[in-house]
Each structure stands twice: as structure tokens, then as C-alpha cells.
């Protein structure tokens, strides 16, 4: 058999059944897109920092030096130290007070900003990603740094430097990202001189050995030793700290992405097998004809696999492109979480996923094609299309006896029993689609609640703090007076934070304390109750894990020579980058560490008050020496919500295509019967009801199974996600399904089934009876 004849047979088979080819292509497209998106996001969620850090040659160590206490030669010498592979700087720095007007908010925000003088964004270390606009080339221009917590400043805005005589204005000409967050804003070096910078500069380094905390400590020590005493200002910044903070935010979301990816792959397999088996079955007569004119069994198999592989290849390629396109906004959100500029779908994902999906399609096509290839010519022609004998007859009979049920409906409901294997695959596809919907909806609610509870954006959206250190008594009085005068204030409280070293724990514990009850501040309890007295505390899950304690236990806190034994009253939902947190009254903290002043004030607002406008007005009252900031939800939550929605929609589409395929196959196999139905008086509406109900029955069953399955998946995965972030999760994040929601979700399977079957059903309902009767 000449290959050309096989290819020609495959091509004619393909063009003769355009709808089948389109379905195969679309299933391959949607499945590939969902799988590529899920895998791409999972890969990026695991290592975006490393990717971006390597690509942008991120600074492993950033130090600030007092240029008056060292010389350019000594600084240059540090770049040639053993182990230093690259260095950049010195970049002059200055801290200024600014007034920034944000779009959509009344007034201007007073903020301290550290400006870094840098001639260009590129360089051997910290190659900046210019996200918008251009670089600052002369005075009067500034490039704003985009970080997870930075203000949403855009190109074209102006920033007034209020701490310099004449209040010069800087125009934002660009927005850039530094993978290690080495600056808040960049200006041309001449600007630092113009703003009378105080003589400090930043140096950035990369080292041959920087993978561990120990290696980093050694690297920093070598630089410190190479500089004159007192030249180093502040604490050198290690990239490992930045990386740990970033990873802790995204780690919780990997399990859900993996879950969606697995669901997408399972559904793809189910649907591809269903599509291909159906295509082979419905084409059995043609296979018989091909064999009767001299095609060998292997040539028939090859032609058939090719017939499936061609549209699948187009679909897989298009799916890879679609997955890549869909990943762009999601990866952009992830990039903002990590502060890493631009993230791209890994090339190997874009290449591997479609190839794997194509191979899967080929394998799925092979089994039924081999079966058809082995069939005798006469049998292939004779058995084409007709449902196998005796399947589903009892169902027709039983359902036909249901009183008051319209006959068209009962015929439709009995139809799936004629092809049990196909029905099982269709049911599985709808089931997974409906599980994805149930889980996706629940996850969306959980993530939204977690975002609100962790950020405090709903309960304490405004914070007032000094740029550094604790608030003075005068500042506290000023804050209390200003907050009391400011319209829109609902509650406010002082917050005193500190770090306590605890024997047995490597890292210090963060302490958060309030003078009064902490209930309204938005922290959610996982278990137990809030502290009442001076010897009671609440802690986060990480504390309990790290110390091996449980709610109700006592624990001895140590601060210098002072010790206090406290009882753990409750477990707080608080994720702070895998760190231990403890909540107590200000009085309890004062007993351990006397003389601490409040670090900040937290303010809750009356309903309907714009937080940013409130902050701007308060900032105007308090002046530039106090930072008034607003809490916004973390972009990582927004990223997860978008990804959740996109994957859910894609999986619904895949499930719908699975149903569409089944409906088309069913119609094709029963085309003549449908003609008979119409000839004896079945109206188009009854025909529509019959075809749709053949899928709806499966959809209802799938929906009913999907509800407990989706809820169970949610109940299993949300705690897993929490544990990946180092926390248990409160009941509010698990009990997210209201009875009304469950009732709506129960029809998800039905809607997917009806949606998939409606198109073919409408087509067959409109078909002229004589045409249907002529069908073989």
C-alpha cells in the first residue's frame, strides 16, 4: 500500500467529517491550553524568583555605604574581592519627603521615598526590567519602582519633593522592577546632587557562592572587612531574605494549580478517548469499504490515526498558543508578587504539553483503530453505526412506562444506555467539569476571604507609622487628635510590635500587641478565643508547630532577664512568611519589655469611605514625618482568583465539548431513527428535548456526584494549601458553600450537559424529515 493512498484516505475522511475534525481540534485546543496554563503556572509558581533572578542578574547582596567614610578606590577594591563575580555601583542615594497624588483619590499622600541615582537600567548586576515608559536621563525625571507594596504610580504623574527648598517636582517617566527590590525610585545621578543628597551610596554584588545563609554571611563579612570601620550603613540586604518572603506567599497556591492541572489532564484523556473511539466507531463502515477496495489492516489503522492526529495537531498547537496568551496576565500578576518584572511561560512547557497531548490523542486513536483494522470487511460494513444489540432496550422499556413522563424525554433519557462505555466517558467528562466548577467556586470564596482576613483590608485599611522607629508621645497625641477629627473614622488602636528571642527557636518571634481587644482588627481565630488578661496570648499556627504547643498550653516567654509564663488562648490565622507570631495585650508586652512605645496606629473606617482619600486627608493633617498607608489585598490573591476562574471556564468548555461530541455521535448513529421519529409526528421541540435529555440525564448524575466530590476536594485542598503556607485554616475558609450555592452548583453538570447537547439538538430539530430519512 503506497503511503500517498493512506494520506489521501485520511484527508478525505477528515474533510468528509468536518464537524468531527472540529470537535477533535477544539478538545485538543482547550485541553492543551488548560494543561499548559496549569503546568506553566505550577512551574512558575515554584521557581519564578530563581528564573527572574538569574535572567536579571539580581543582586545577591545590596549594601549602603557612607561615602564620607570610604573612598572610591576602597569601594572599587570590594568588587575585586575573592568570590565576587560581578558588582555595580556606587549609586548615590537620598531620602526625601514627597507628596504623591494618586489617581482616583482626593488629596496627596505624604511619603518618605529613597531615591537612587542610576544612569541606566542595565548593568552587570540588577538588570532592571523597564515595565513602562523610559529611563530618567536628566534632572526632573524619576522612574518609579514597582514592588508588591509600592504605590500605584504611573508614567506621567508628578511627585513633589517637599523636603527640599523650592519643592521641586519630578515627572514619572518610567516604571521599572528590580528583582531584589534595590530601590523605591530611580533618578539620574545628577538629580541626587541637585537634591543635596547626604552622601550615601548603594553597592550591589554577585558572588560565586551564595546559595546558603552561611555562604551569604561569609560573603557579607568579606565586604565588611574590606571597608573602613563605620562605612557600612544599616544592614546589608541578602537576596535569600527576599526570596523566602516571596516564596512563602506563592507556595500555598501550588496545590490548587496542580489539582486543576490533574483534572484538566484526566478530562482530556477521557474526552480524547471518547472522541476518537466515537470517530472510529462512526467511521467503521468507511473502514470496511476501504478494506474492500484493497487497504491492508495496517494502512487502515494508519489512515485512521492520521485522520485524528491532523486536527489534533492543529488543536494542540493552537492550544499551546492560547495557554501562552492566557498565562501572560497571570504571570504578570505573579511577577508583581515577586517583584520580578516580566515572567514568561517556560519554553519547554509550550513545546512539551502540545506534543504530549498529541501523543495521547494518537495513543487513544490507536486502540479503536486497531480494533477496526482487525475487523472483517463484511463485519465492518455491517456493524457500522448501529448500537450494539440488546444494550439499552430495557431502559427504553422501563422509562417508557414512567407515568406522565413525555415520551420524547424518556426516549432521550434511555439513549445513554445504548452505549455504556461512551456514556461512562461522557459522564466522567461532565463529572470532572462539574467538580472543577464546585471546587473553583469554593476556592474563589476561600481565597477572597483569606485575602480580606490576612490583609486586613476590610477591617483596618489605614495605618499610620513613622518612617522608622517607634512613635513619640507627641506623635501619638497628634495621631489620636487627627484621627478623631477625621470624618469616616470607625475604630482606631495603637499597635506595638516587637521581636522576642525564644530559646529553642532559630528565629525570633514577632509580637503584635494592642492596648484593648483585638477582635475588630480582622485577625481570624482558627481555634480557641482571644486573650483577655496579661498572662494570655494568641499565636499563629507556625508558632504552635515550631514550639510543639497546643491551644490551652502554657509557654514561657523570655526577654533579657525577664520571663513571663503565658497561656495560649487561641490560634490565629496569620501567614507571615513561615514565621512565628504572637498576639498579646500591650500590658503583657510591657511586662516583658518595659518602655516600648506604639509603632503604628491601625484605623478602621465607616462603610463607604474611600481608604485612599481618607489616608490622603489624614496625611495632610499629620504632615510628611508620619507615613499614612492603606492596606490593599495582595496581588497574589488576585492572581489566584483569575487563574481559578480561567481554569474553571476552560474545564467547563472541555466538558461541554465532550458532551457535544457524544451528542453528535449519537445523532449520527441514529440519524435514520430521528427521521422516523419525525415522520411519525415528533415535533422539532420534542426532538430537541429528546436529544438534550439524552445528555441531561448524565449531567444530572454527574452534578449530583460532583457536589460531594467538589466539596471534598475543596475541604482537602484548602488545608493543604494552608499547610504549604505554614498555617492551619479557619472554619470560615472551609465552610464556604451555602445551601443556595450548593443547589445552584448541583445543576452545574446539567448545564454543562445541556450546553454541550443544545447545538447538535437544535441542528437535528431543524433538519428536514425527508433528509433525515434518507440518512443511512
Amino acid at each position, binding site marked *: 500500500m503506497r503511503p500517498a493512498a493512506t494520506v489521501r484516505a485520511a484527508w478525505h475522511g477528515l474533510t468528509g467529517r468536518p464537524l468531527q475534525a472540529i470537535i477533535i481540534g477544539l478538545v485538543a485546543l482547550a485541553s492543551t491550553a488548560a494543561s499548559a496554563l496549569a503546568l506553566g503556572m505550577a512551574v512558575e509558581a515554584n521557581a519564578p524568583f530563581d528564573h527572574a533572578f538569574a535572567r536579571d542578574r539580581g543582586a545577591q547582596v545590596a549594601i549602603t555605604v557612607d561615602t564620607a567614610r570610604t573612598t572610591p578606590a576602597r569601594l572599587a577594591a570590594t568588587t575585586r574581592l575573592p568570590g565576587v563575580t560581578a558588582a555595580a555601583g556606587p549609586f548615590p542615594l537620598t531620602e526625601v519627603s514627597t507628596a504623591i497624588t494618586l489617581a482616583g483619590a482626593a488629596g496627596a499622600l505624604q511619603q518618605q521615598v529613597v531615591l537612587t541615582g542610576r544612569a541606566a537600567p542595565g548593568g552587570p548586576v540588577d538588570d532592571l526590567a523597564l515595565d513602562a515608559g523610559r529611563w530618567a536621563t536628566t534632572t526632573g525625571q524619576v522612574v518609579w519602582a514597582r514592588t508588591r507594596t509600592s504605590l500605584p504610580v504611573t508614567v506621567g504623574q508628578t511627585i513633589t519633593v517637599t523636603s527640599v527648598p523650592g519643592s521641586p517636582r519630578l515627572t514619572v517617566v518610567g516604571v521599572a522592577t528590580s528583582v531584589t527590590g534595590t530601590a523605591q525610585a530611580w533618578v539620574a545621578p545628577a538629580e541626587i546632587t541637585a537634591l543635596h543628597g547626604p552622601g550615601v551610596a548603594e553597592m550591589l554584588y554577585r558572588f560565586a557562592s551564595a546559595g546558603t545563609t552561611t555562604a551569604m554571611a561569609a560573603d557579607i563579612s568579606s565586604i565588611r572587612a574590606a571597608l573602613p570601620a563605620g562605612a557600612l550603613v544599616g544592614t546589608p540586604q541578602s537576596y535569600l531574605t527576599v526570596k523566602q518572603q516571596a516564596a512563602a506567599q506563592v507556595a500555598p497556591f501550588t496545590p490548587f494549580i496542580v489539582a486543576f492541572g490533574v483534572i484538566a489532564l484526566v478530562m482530556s484523556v477521557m474526552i480524547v478517548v471518547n472522541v476518537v473511539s466515537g470517530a472510529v466507531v462512526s467511521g467503521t463502515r468507511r473502514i470496511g469499504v476501504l478494506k474492500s477496495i484493497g487497504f491492508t489492516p495496517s494502512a487502515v489503522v494508519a489512515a485512521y490515526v492520521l485522520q485524528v492526529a491532523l486536527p489534533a495537531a492543529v488543536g494542540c498547537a493552537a492550544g499551546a498558543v492560547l495557554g501562552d496568551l492566557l498565562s501572560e496576565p497571570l504571570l504578570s500578576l505573579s511577577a508583581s508578587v515577586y517583584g520580578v518584572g516580566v515572567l514568561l511561560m517556560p519554553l519547554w512547557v509550550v513545546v512539551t504539553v502540545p506534543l504530549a497531548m498529541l501523543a495521547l490523542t494518537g495513543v487513544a486513536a490507536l486502540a479503536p483503530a486497531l480494533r477496526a483494522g482487525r475487523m472483517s470487511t463484511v463485519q465492518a460494513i455491517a456493524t457500522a453505526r*448501529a448500537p450494539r444489540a440488546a444494550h439499552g432496550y430495557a431502559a427504553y422499556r422501563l422509562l417508557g412506562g414512567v407515568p406522565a413522563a413525555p*415520551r420524547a424525554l424518556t426516549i432521550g433519557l434511555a439513549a445513554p444506555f445504548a452505549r455504556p462505555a461512551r456514556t461512562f466517558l461522557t459522564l466522567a467528562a461532565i463529572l470532572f467539569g462539574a467538580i472543577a466548577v464546585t471546587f473553583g467556586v469554593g476556592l474563589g470564596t476561600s481565597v477572597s476571604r483569606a485575602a480580606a482576613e490576612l490583609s486586613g483590608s476590610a477591617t483596618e485599611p489605614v495605618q499610620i507609622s513613622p518612617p522608622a522607629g517607634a512613635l513619640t508621645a507627641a506623635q501619638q497625641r497628634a495621631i489620636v487628635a487627627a484621627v478623631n477629627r477625621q470624618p469616616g473614622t470607625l475604630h482606631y488602636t495603637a499597635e506595638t510590635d516587637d521581636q522576642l528571642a525564644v530559646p529553642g527557636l532559630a528565629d525570633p518571634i514577632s509580637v503584635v500587641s494592642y492596648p484593648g481587644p483585638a477582635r475588630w482588627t480582622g485577625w481570624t481565630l482558627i481555634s480557641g478565643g482571644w486573650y483577655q488578661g496579661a498572662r494570655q496570648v494568641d499565636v499563629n499556627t507556625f508558632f504552635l508547630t515550631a514550639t510543639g504547643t497546643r491551644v490551652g498550653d502554657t509557654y514561657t516567654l523570655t526577654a533579657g532577664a525577664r520571663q513571663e509564663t503565658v497561656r495560649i488562648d487561641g490560634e490565629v490565622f496569620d501567614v507571615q512568611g513561615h514565621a512565628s507570631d504572637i498576639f498579646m495585650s500591650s500590658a503583657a508586652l510591657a511586662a516583658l519589655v518595659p518602655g516600648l512605645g506604639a509603632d503604628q496606629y491601625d484605623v478602621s473606617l465607616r462603610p463607604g469611605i474611600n481608604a485612599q482619600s481618607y489616608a490622603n486627608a489624614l496625611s495632610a493633617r499629620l504632615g510628611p514625618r508620619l507615613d499614612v498607608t492603606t492596606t490593599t489585598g495582595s496581588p497574589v490573591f488576585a492572581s489566584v482568583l483569575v487563574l481559578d476562574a480561567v481554569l474553571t471556564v476552560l474545564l467547563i468548555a472541555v466538558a461541554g465539548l465532550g458532551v457535544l461530541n457524544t451528542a453528535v455521535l449519537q445523532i449520527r448513529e441514529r440519524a435514520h431513527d430521528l427521521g422516523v421519529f419525525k*415522520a*411519525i409526528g415528533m*415535533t422539532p421541540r420534542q426532538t430537541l428535548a429528546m436529544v438534550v435529555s439524552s445528555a441531561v440525564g448524565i449531567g444530572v448524575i454527574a452534578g449530583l456526584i460532583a457536589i460531594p466530590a467538589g466539596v471534598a476536594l475543596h475541604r482537602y485542598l484548602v488545608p493543604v494549601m494552608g499547610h504549604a503556607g505554614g498555617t492551619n485554616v479557619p472554619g470560615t475558609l472551609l465552610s464556604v458553600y451555602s445551601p443556595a450555592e450548593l443547589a445552584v452548583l448541583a445543576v452545574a453538570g446539567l448545564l454543562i450537559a445541556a450546553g454541550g447537547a443544545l447545538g447538535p439538538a437544535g441542528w437535528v*430539530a431543524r433538519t428536514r424529515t425527508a433528509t433525515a430519512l434518507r440518512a443511512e
Partner: protein
Amino acid sequence: MSPLVQLEHVTKKYDNLRVDAAAAVDDVSAAVAEGEAVAVMGPSGSGKSTLLNLIAALDRPTGGTVRVADVRVDSLSETGAARFRRRHIGMIFQFFNLLEDMTVADNVLLPAQLGGQSRRRARARATELLDRLQISRYADTYPARLSGGERQRVAIARALVNEPPLLLADEPTGALDTANGEAIGALLLELNAAGQTLILVTHNPDLAQRYAHRVIQIVDGRVADDSPAGLTGARP
């Protein structure tokens, strides 16, 4: 009294886009009175089955009008056509067109159920027909287990379940052996004798002569002849 079936200048072309396309039915005018048995005869491809489809509102003519029981069937919507067939038409096909996954009784009951007839009334009518056509012992049997003649009896029972005024039979004995063909012919004759209007499509002149009052000859889509027949039922 107006005829039960009235065809006026009926034309049917399957390729409307081609001006020179041949018409399957070309300017046919004819009438069938109530209680009449008419045979439509002609060679294969002459357009006789197409004509039957147009009368049954299974298809729409390209031109002309088709009236059945004073209903303009050529302008009915698909829904209207389905309802019309339920009330006015019983169809018998050469290859029976029974639904293989339904029992004999279910096949017969189906048109009544689609028409929303009450369960009791439909069952009573189906039982009566199965008895009359001597196939009641096969009520719970699937069509695949029946002989050709038995299947055609089931098809006739199904066609009659809604008591239609017009019975259309497209080559009803074409797939049967001689004995079964004779039996089905006799059955149709009996139904017509009881007042059932019958239009029978066949290419068998003997059948047409014996089982119809009138024979309409169709050649290349046109009426070539319309003349009385014997209606003897007996073999010459």
C-alpha cells in the same frame, strides 16, 4: 365535496441553486378523494417517493400547492408539519422503519404518545390494532425477532394508531417475499374497504392494478397517465 388530497402544479427540485437542475417532481396536479385507493407507479427515480414525501409534509415543494384535508401542507413549519402528520397521515415504508430498541407495542404506541394521547386510550387502540393485524402475541417482542411480513404489520399498526384519514404506503411489499407481500396487500385492501384512504407507491404494475381504484403513472417527475384500475385484490 373537496378531495382529501389536492396537488396543484407541484414541482420539487433538489438542487435549487442550479437553474437547469432536473425536477424530481415536475408540475404535477392530481387529486385523491376520501376512501379512494390510488397507486402511484413509475420506474426507479421517477419521483413517486418524492411525491409521497410532499403529501406527507416530510419535504417541501419548490413550487405549487399541496392540500391534505384542507390543510396547505406546503407552507407548514416543521412543528406544524409534525402535528399535521400525527393527525392526518399514517406512513408505511418499504423497509418498515421500526425502532429496533423498542418493543412492538412501544413502536405502535409511539405516535399516540408523541401526540399526547392518554395512556389508557393509546394502549387500548394499540391492543385493538395488534389484535386486528394478528400480531398481538409479539407485543413484547423486539422487531429484530420478527419476519419481514410481521414487521410490516407492526408498521401498519403504528401508522394507524392515531386513526389518520390518509394512509401513505411507500413500496409496502418491496422488501417482502411473495406470500408476505400478498398478505400485506390483502390487508391494505381490507383497510381501504373499511373506508381508509390509501395512496400506495409501487413500481409493480400487478400490485397497482389489484389494490387500487386508480393508477397514476409518473415518468421523469411528470404525470404520464391517470386511469382507473381493477381493485380486484385477486391475482389475474
